[in-house]
C-alpha cells in the first residue's frame, strides 16, 4: 500500500511547519509569555524565506539558496518577536493584545515589502525551495521508508529539534530556569535568575522557531509568499502546543495529528465514496477535529502557572 506511505509523507510535510511553530510557542509560554502572535511570526518567516531565498537563488547559490531563506526567516522572526517582547515584558502590555499587534504588523508589513520589492506584485516570484532527500537504506523500508525517510530537510530538522528542545527544557540549567520563570517568577528572581532576560530569550526563540515554520511553508509547499501563505497555521500551532501540554514531545504528536488531518483531506478525495460528500465538509475536517480534540482533552490545567502575568518584583 503506497497510499499509506504517501499519506504519511504528506502528513509530515504539513506537520513540519506546525512542529517548528509549536516548539516556538512552548519556549515563549514556558517562560510565562502568551504568544498569540505565532501566526504573524510565521508570516514574517515565510516572507523572509521567500525573499531571502529568491535573492540567494538569483546570486547563483543553487541548493544553498533555501538555507539562506531559512536563516533570513529566523532573523526576521526574532526581530518580529522583539516587538512582542518589548511591549509585553518591558512595558507590561497585555500579552494577548501585543500578540495580536504582531499579527497585524506582519500582515501589513510583509505585503507592503513584497509590493515595494517586486514592483507592486501581490506575491514573491516563484523559487525552487527544498528538494526531498531520501536517506539511504532507511528509505527502502516499506511505508515508513517512503513516509518518513524521503522527506524535506526541514522535516528532519524539525524532528531533531523536538528532541534537542526536550533535552534543553528538561535537562539543562537553562531549561530549569526558563520553566521556573514561567511557573513562579519571584522564586526565580530571589535566586538571582533574571526573569525578564529569560522571558526575552523565550520570546525570541519562539520568533526564531515560528520564523522557521513559516519558511518551511514557502520553501516546501507554496514556493512563493502571498497574503494567504500562512492562513491560520500559527493558530493551529497554538492549538498543538496546548494539546501537547506545553511539552515538545506532546506538541510534536499533536502537530503530526493536525498535519494528518490536513493531509487526509487530499486523500479522502481519492476514494469514490467521498464524491458524495461536499468538498466544504472535507475542508472543515482539520478545524472540526481540533475542536473535538480540545473538548476531549483536559483544559488549561497544565499551563505554566504564571502564564500571561507580567512580572512585577514589587508585588508578591
Amino acid at each position, binding site marked *: 500500500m503506497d497510499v499509506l506511505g504517501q499519506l504519511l509523507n504528506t502528513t509530515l510535510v504539513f506537520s513540519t511547519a506546525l512542529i517548528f511553530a509549536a516548539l516556538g510557542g512552548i519556549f515563549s509560554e514556558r517562560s510565562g509569555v502568551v504568544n498569540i502572535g505565532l501566526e504573524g511570526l510565521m508570516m514574517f518567516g515565510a516572507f523572509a524565506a521567500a525573499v531571502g531565498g529568491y535573492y540567494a537563488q538569483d546570486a547563483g547559490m543553487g541548493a544553498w539558496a533555501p538555507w539562506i531563506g531559512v536563516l533570513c526567516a529566523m532573523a526576521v522572526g526574532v526581530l518580529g518577536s522583539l516587538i512582542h517582547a518589548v511591549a509585553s515584558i518591558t512595558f507590561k502590555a497585555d500579552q494577548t493584545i*501585543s500578540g*495580536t499587534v504582531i499579527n497585524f504588523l506582519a500582515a501589513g*508589513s510583509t505585503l*507592503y515589502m513584497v509590493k*515595494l520589492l517586486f514592483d507592486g506584485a501581490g506575491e514573491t516570484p516563484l523559487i525552487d525551495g527544498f528538494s526531498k532527500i531520501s536517506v539511504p537504506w532507511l528509505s527502502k523500508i516499506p511505508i515508513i521508508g517512503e513516509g518518513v525517510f524521503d522527506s524535506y530537510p526541514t522535516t528532519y530538522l524539525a524532528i531533531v529539534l523536538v528532541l534537542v528542545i526536550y533535552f534543553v527544557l528538561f535537562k539543562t540549567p537553562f531549561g530549569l530556569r526558563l520553566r521556573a520563570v514561567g511557573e513562579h517568577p519571584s522564586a526565580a528572581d530571589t535566586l538571582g535568575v533574571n526573569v525578564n532576560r529569560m522571558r526575552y530569550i523565550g520570546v525570541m526563540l519562539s520568533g526564531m522557531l515560528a520564523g522557521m515554520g513559516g519558511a518551511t511553508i514557502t520553501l516546501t509547499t507554496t514556493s512563493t509568499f502571498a497574503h494567504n501563505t500562512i492562513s491560520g497555521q500559527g493558530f493551529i500551532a*497554538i492549538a498543538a502546543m496546548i494539546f501537547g501540554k506545553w511539552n515538545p514531545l506532546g506538541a510534536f504528536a499533536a502537530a503530526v495529528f493536525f498535519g494528518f488531518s490536513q493531509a487526509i483531506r487530499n486523500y479522502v478525495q481519492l476514494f469514490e465514496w467521498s464524491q458524495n460528500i461536499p468538498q466544504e465538509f472535507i475542508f472543515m475536517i482539520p478545524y472540526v477535529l481540533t475542536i473535538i480534540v480540545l473538548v476531549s482533552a483536559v483544559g488549561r490545567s497544565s499551563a505554566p502557572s504564571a502564564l500571561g502575568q507580567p512580572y512585577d518584583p514589587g508585588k508578591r
Partner: protein
Amino acid sequence: MYRLKKIFTTDSYIVPLVAIVLGFLVGAIVMLVGGYDPIAAYAALFKRVFGSPYDFGEAVREMTPLMLTGLAVAFAFRSGMFNIGADGQVMIGMTAATVVGIKLAFLPSFLLVPLAVIAAGLCGGLWAGFAGYLKAKRGINEVITTIMMNWIALFLANYIVRTFLLLPGQNRSENIPASLSMTFLNSTFDNARLHWGTLIAIAAAIFFYIFLWKTKQGYEMRAVGLNPHAAEYAGMNVGRNIVKAMFISGVFAGLAGAGEVLGVFHYQSVFAASPGYGFDGIAVALLGLTHPLGVILAAILYGTLTYGSAGMSFGADVPPELIRIVIGSIIFFIAAQGIVRWVLKPFYFKRKKEKVL
C-alpha cells in the same frame, strides 16, 4: 451626560490620541524608507474620503461593519473573553440573512427585512455562544475555538450558498429581494451604498452602553469579566454569563453580516478565503479601548484609513497595506502605554519647567 463629560476630562483620551499620532509617524517613516512621499500619501488618503459625496458615503459604508464587529469584540472583552471569531459570526450572519431574504421572499418587505436581520443576529449569536458554551462547560480557550469556528463558518457558508442559493453559472447567490439600502439618500450621495445598518450599529453601541453599565445583567457580566472568582462567590452563574456575553457579542457580528449582504452587495459570494471582518473588529475594539463610544470613533478612524488607503495607492502609489502597519502601530502604542508615557515625559517635564520660569 455626566459620564460623557468625565470621559473627556480625564487624561484617558490623551494616550490614544498620542498613540494615533505615533502610529501615523511610524507609517510616515515606513513610507520614507520605501521611497514614498508620506505627506502626499496622507493627503491623498483624506482627499479620497472627503473628496466627493459618493466617496464620503462609501467611507461610511466601510465604517458600518467595523462598528459592529468592533462592538462584538469589545463586548466579549468586557466580559473577560477574547472573541477572535467575529469573522465567522459575520459569515454566519450573512448566510442567515441571505437564506431568509431569498427563501422567504414571498413575505411583504416590512416583515421580510426585519426577519432577515433578526435571523442574522440570532445565528451569529448562537455561533459565538457555542464557543462560550465550550469555555463555560469544558474550560476550552475561546481564542482557539473561535478561530477554528471561523474556518468552519467559511466553509459552511460557502456550502449553503453553493448548494441552495446559487445563481446558475456564477460564484454567488441569487439576488436577495430583501434590502436595507437607504435609497432615499441616493441622490445626495451619488448612489453610494448607504444602508440602515449604520443606524443599527449606532443603536447597538447605545444598547452596549446601557446594558453593560445600567442593568443588572450587565453588572453581572462586568463582574464576571473582571473577577470570575468573586462573581461566583457572590452567587452569579459564571458559565451562564460567559455564554450570554458571547451570544450578545455574536449578535453584533451577525448584524454586521446582515448589513453587508442586505445593504451593500444584495447577494452573497462564495468566498475563497476569510473576508477579514473579524480581524478588523479586533483592531477597532482595541483602538476604542473597548468602550462603545470609543469603538464608534475608532471605527470611523479605521474606516477612513482603509477606505482612504485605496486613494493613497492611486494618488501616491503607496501600497494600501501600509495602513495595516499604521493601525498595528497605533494598537501597539495603546497596549504598551508605558511607551507613550515615556514619549510624553519630556512634555510634562517641559511644562513644569515653564511654570517655574
